[in-house]
């Protein structure tokens, strides 16, 4: 048996305000504090289209290679539900903003193209919370811009669906289209699955699983649902067309009551909104501002900065990190050195402190300056690590930190010769060890020089002077 999976992915757009009113599009906040007559569906209130939401949807379409419908419009989708202020949702029915398109996903051993059917713009619903005998409704989320991306049933299994969601999230985050924060419900999806005996058979009856909030959950739900459908078919049972709900904790799915989902949405053109007619010039202007996509950026960073492909892949995966890296690399002119700091100390401290690159105190300018101090041998590597840690924690100017902490490397032969003489006097045993062939003893002696110099001695120079003194 073969499964066919199509996704309807709902993405909350990163705008300042809601889709049709000037209320803030902001997560959190006390219930019903980001509301107005429009998003509460008050009598007489009217919607007005948020231009930025249109732009972000078109940008998504361009990133996914869609055809942009210059002429498009909004429609009313009618259904009663307490989370729907007007009991209709303003959506796009037969003239969505984008149609066609595709996204390449990365599988273990190959890549695969998943076709995009359409992308349209609509408004999100309110949030329900159950309290014992009833439900509370908070309209803060109601009316926030929601982009729906619909795929063809091109995915064969849960891994492919997971890979699609991951790739989609990366590209949306990259272009600043959405915050892509799954905990805040920025990306949610409905999954359509069917099974059929062979690739040549027609598609089987489709079952919809609604409202998946996490990619892991979608993966588990799909694994379960595909097996369930195969078992049903193998037992000779027909799969009814239905909507199911996935209980991620229990690991089971169950049918939703169909009464509320009598699909007669009575779509008709939204009379309160005028048609949208974009110009090609407008779309071209937006297209020119599209960010480079991660795979292309990775290749370019290898070329431009001479860094390893692996490093480029890691850095390019997150747009903010890649932007940070490129800025520091350009300022410093030493891409490889900057990349080393990014791959080691930066990543380690970001993970350890749970910070985002956008919020760190160490600026790209400071990192470039730190690299320059190391290159000029003003400080040595251990001192540089110390400076990095200070910059990460407090920010500031590396030159100043080096001075304040007295970290300037001592490269004066006379001064170091004195330290070397002292170390040789106090460690005759090690000198003998070295002379009798114990190479490690030299490292110990270098370490002693560093210690009494409080880390400031140029270790290269110390090593040379030691060797000169004890011969080889």
């Amino acid at each position, binding site marked *: 048996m073969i499964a066919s999976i199509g996704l309807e992915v709902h993405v909350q757009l990163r705008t300042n305000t809601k889709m049709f*009113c000037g209320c803030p599009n902001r997560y959190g906040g006390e219930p019903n504090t980001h509301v107005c007559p429009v998003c509460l569906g008050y009598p007489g209130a009217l919607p007005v289209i948020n231009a930025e939401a*249109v732009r972000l949807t078109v940008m998504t379409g361009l990133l996914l290679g869609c055809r942009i419908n210059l002429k498009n419009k909004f429609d009313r989708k009618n259904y009663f539900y307490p989370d729907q202020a007007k009991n209709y949702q303003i959506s796009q029915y037969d003239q969505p903003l984008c149609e066609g398109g595709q996204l390449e996903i990365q599988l273990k051993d190959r890549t695969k193209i998943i076709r995009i059917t359409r992308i349209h713009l609509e408004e999100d619903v309110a949030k329900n919370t159950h309290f014992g005998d009833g439900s509370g409704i908070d309209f803060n989320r109601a009316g926030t811009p929601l982009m729906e991306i619909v795929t063809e049933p091109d995915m064969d299994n849960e891994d492919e669906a997971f890979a699609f969601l991951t790739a989609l999230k990366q590209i949306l985050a990259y272009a600043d289209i959405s915050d892509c924060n799954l905990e805040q419900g920025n990306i949610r999806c409905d999954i359509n699955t069917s099974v059929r005996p062979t690739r040549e058979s027609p598609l089987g009856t489709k079952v919809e699983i609604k409202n998946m909030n996490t990619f892991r959950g979608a993966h588990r739900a799909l694994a379960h649902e595909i097996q369930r459908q195969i078992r049903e078919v193998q037992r000779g049972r027909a799969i009814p067309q239905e909507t199911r709900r996935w209980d991620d904790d229990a690991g089971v799915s169950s049918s939703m009551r169909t009464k509320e989902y009598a699909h007669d949405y009575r779509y008709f053109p939204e009379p309160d909104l005028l048609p949208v007619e974009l110009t090609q010039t407008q779309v071209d202007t937006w297209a020119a501002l599209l960010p480079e996509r991660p795979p292309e950026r990775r290749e370019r960073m290898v070329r431009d900065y001479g860094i390893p492909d692996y490093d480029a892949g890691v850095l390019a995966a997150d747009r903010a990190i890649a932007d940070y890296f490129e800025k520091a690399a350009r300022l410093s002119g030493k891409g490889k050195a900057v990349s080393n700091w990014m791959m080691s100390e930066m990543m380690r401290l970001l993970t350890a402190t749970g910070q985002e690159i956008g919020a760190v105190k160490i600026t790209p300018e400071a990192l470039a300056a730190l690299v320059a101090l190391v290159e000029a041998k003003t400080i040595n590597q251990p001192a540089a690590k110390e400076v990095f840690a200070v910059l990460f924690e407090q920010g500031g100017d590396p030159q100043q930190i080096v001075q304040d902490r007295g970290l300037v490397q001592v490269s004066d032969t006379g001064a170091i010769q004195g330290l070397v003489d002292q170390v040789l006097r106090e460690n005759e045993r090690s000198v003998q060890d070295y002379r009798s062939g114990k190479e490690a003893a030299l490292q110990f002696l270098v370490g002693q020089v560093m210690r009494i110099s409080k880390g400031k001695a140029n270790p290269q120079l110390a090593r040379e002077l030691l060797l000169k003194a004890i011969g080889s």
Partner: protein
Amino acid sequence: MDVNANAPASPEKIDVAYVAHLARISLAPGEQELFQQQLEHILDHVNKLNELDVSGIEPMAHAIPVKNCFREDVERPGLAHEAAMRNAPEERHGQFFVPRILE
């Protein structure tokens, strides 16, 4: 997506009970029969439109030939929480309270 499928050439009788449920209106005894008869009468008149050949005519959704009305993505003051809840028939924990939603 095919919820507004093409219509049959000659519409059948209106099913008032079904349509009333779609509109979330329950009809009292007698009301359904009365509406059935009245609406059939009205629809007889409405079916007059079938006399007209409208092929090639663009549907007119708006009375004005204007397009592209947008707003800038800028916040506007909304309602204070108290003002938003003042009209609520039932409130709990700062939220609009309804009988338990069955999914």
